[in-house]
């Protein structure tokens, strides 16, 4: 079957999936007696219609960029890292230790230190499943998801016990010192009397996330290591025959993946909460899977998909504030988008491929799979 043109692959498939998800969501909203058009307007206005909305949308998006990149990088070596949740939680621990126990003179230095702490902690958490996969063949899907639970229990222990200040009820660390507070968009972009991004948590980490996208793109498509990772992903025996060591590739890919997931913590732990709380990741590790799927494991796609999910989160919050739509239904709407863009991808793709195949010249017997990446 003829391959679709690149624009259809990158734009048309996600767009149609989104429209389908929106239609079903509209039916759901209608069924509970609310007006879907008002709801949509409220979501768009609330998430994209003001700097306030963008401040939240981009904050959530920053989280999802990191976890999305984590899944994407691993996926290039056909490793399915669904341990982003645990790796990001451990990243939070790394950030908390760095911020609490090192007296930083300035936030910029603290940011560098926290970035290192988050990446190292996240990577270390991914290293164990990676080692088990590389040396013992324990399936990475099973081990990473189990490590999520171990991470949650470990953080529970630390936050209820050693890291909690005496007398505090909250299972959380003490607040970080003032010098580690990252500048928010409000600090950066407000001028004179005009306060933009008022009170929103979006912070300088967003630019770290964009930089991470560029870095991942460079590594995957512009370095020898990236080539080896992709070669390994396409065919393990061929890669081995070409002299690429599987142990090395699995380890290095998972370390990068875990490190990226861990980096999320500089946004939510250091940038927003300014202390480490229980369950700080709040499912962003799993959203990362949907983001990577929708972004076709390409950093630019991941960035766009992350912003979309940021929109859904912030728009969902606005729905909760100003309508009587219960929060459970907002989760349903978010889930529908994940379902259509992630799980039901082929439902849209296959008919589209058929249409494009018929539109172009009579198909040549081309056996290339539809799974190849978009050209970078």
């Amino acid at each position, binding site marked *: 079957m003829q391959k679709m043109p690149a624009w259809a692959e990158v734009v048309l498939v996600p767009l149609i999936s989104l429209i389908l998800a929106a239609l079903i969501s509209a039916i759901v909203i209608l069924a509970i007696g609310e007006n879907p058009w008002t709801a949509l307007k409220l979501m768009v206005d609330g998430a994209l219609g003001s700097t306030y909305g963008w401040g939240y949308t981009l904050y959530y998006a920053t989280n999802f960029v990191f976890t999305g990149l984590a899944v994407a990088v691993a996926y290039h070596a056909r490793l399915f890292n669904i341990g982003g949740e645990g790796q990001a939680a451990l990243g939070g621990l790394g950030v908390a230790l760095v911020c609490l126990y090192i007296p930083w003179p300035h936030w910029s230095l603290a940011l560098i230190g926290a970035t290192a702490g988050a990446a190292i902690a996240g990577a270390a958490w991914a290293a164990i499943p990676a080692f088990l996969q590389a040396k013992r063949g324990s399936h990475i899907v099973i081990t990473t998801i189990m490590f999520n639970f171990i991470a949650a229990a470990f953080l529970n222990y630390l936050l209820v016990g050693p890291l909690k200040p005496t007398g505090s009820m909250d299972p959380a660390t003490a607040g970080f010192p003032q010098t580690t507070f990252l500048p928010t968009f409000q600090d950066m972009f407000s001028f004179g009397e005009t306060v933009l991004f008022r009170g*929103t*948590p979006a912070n300088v980490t967003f630019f770290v996330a964009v930089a991470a996208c560029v870095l991942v793109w460079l590594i995957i498509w512009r370095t020898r290591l990236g080539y080896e990772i992709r070669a390994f992903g396409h065919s393990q025996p061929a890669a081995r025959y070409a002299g690429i060591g599987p142990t090395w590739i699995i380890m290095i890919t998972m370390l990068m993946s875990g490190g990226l997931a861990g980096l999320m913590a500089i946004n939510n732990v250091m940038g927003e909460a300014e202390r480490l709380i229980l369950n700080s990741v709040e499912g962003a590790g799993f959203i990362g899977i949907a983001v990577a799927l929708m972004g076709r494991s390409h950093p630019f796609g991941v960035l766009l998909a992350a912003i979309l999910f940021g929109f859904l989160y912030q728009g969902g919050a606005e729905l909760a504030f100003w309508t009587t739509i219960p*929060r459970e239904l907002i989760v349903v709407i978010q889930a529908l988008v994940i379902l259509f863009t992630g799980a039901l991808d082929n439902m849209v793709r296959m008919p589209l491929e058929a249409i494009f195949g018929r539109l172009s010249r009579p198909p040549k017997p081309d056996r290339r799979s539809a799974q190849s990446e978009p050209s970078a």
Partner: protein
Amino acid sequence: MTFMKTLLGATATLAMTAGAALADPAVIFDLGGKFDKSFNESSFTGAQRWAEETGGTFAEVELQSDAQREQAIRRFAEAGYNPVIMAGFSNQTALETAAPDYPDTTFVIIDAVVDQPNVRSVVFDEHEGSYLVGVMAAMASETGTVGFIGGMDIPLIRKFGCGYAQGVMDTNPDATVVANMTGTTPAAWNDPVRGSELTQAQISQGADVVFAAAGGTGVGVLQTAADEEILSIGVDSNQNYLHPGLVLTSMLKRVDNAVYDAMMAGPEVETGVNVMGVANGGVGVAIDENNESLVTDEMMAAVEEAIAGIEDGSIEVHDYMSDESCPAISF
């Protein structure tokens, strides 16, 4: 600049449409959701009572994530809702940050103290209420062993347990208090199965009255106690009706009253720290037709004596949170 204008314009429009609801109160429910059969539900009940009595309306939101705490406070304050009420100590940090930005809005926080001129902090003397049910438990127990089942192991719950144990020991110095916590994570607030197991374990240790201060977990404690035909004590709201004749009483923590009072007073609600104790009806024991048969006259007299003692200071109930220790029991 036109893009900027559009953005600002959009914010202004939104603010105006939302401003229609001027000076209505707003309630923020915590992550547990407003029907958690415990704390949040109690504040919902208070808000609902206000709405029914006055015909007023209030805005509400159930939080979905921690990042939304400050967002919800700011959104409601910006839209002109006043007072903005939130239950739960988890909102403390967010309110400390946001409250100074909205000097014209009054905020009410329950179970935490936020030291800002426009914040009313409502705290409860849970140890005093627990002391009262401890007195009743000691008198109702035939084996001389009573149980305490806490939810998540945090200082607040130890405060319940400590006051309870002191009430028991003051009434019957030979009594034994068995205390267990359901867990160390927020999941411990909603684990009735574990609550049931702990009740079984305490029964096998001889307990014949158990006090559950464990949110949704308490439902399992009360159920098992009823199944095994021992007495139980409910918490927060009046849970006597759950198993008539088998729930000795409930330690009332009138979160609903705190919310109701704040809504009644409106934007002019008095700020500062508001302590709800035995004296002003913030905590107490629940007596109704479901437990009349269980409460003897001596019990009633002892409780009233204890209330009088707490009020005039002759009985000093130890507050676990004042020094993180408890003379009556070790956890």
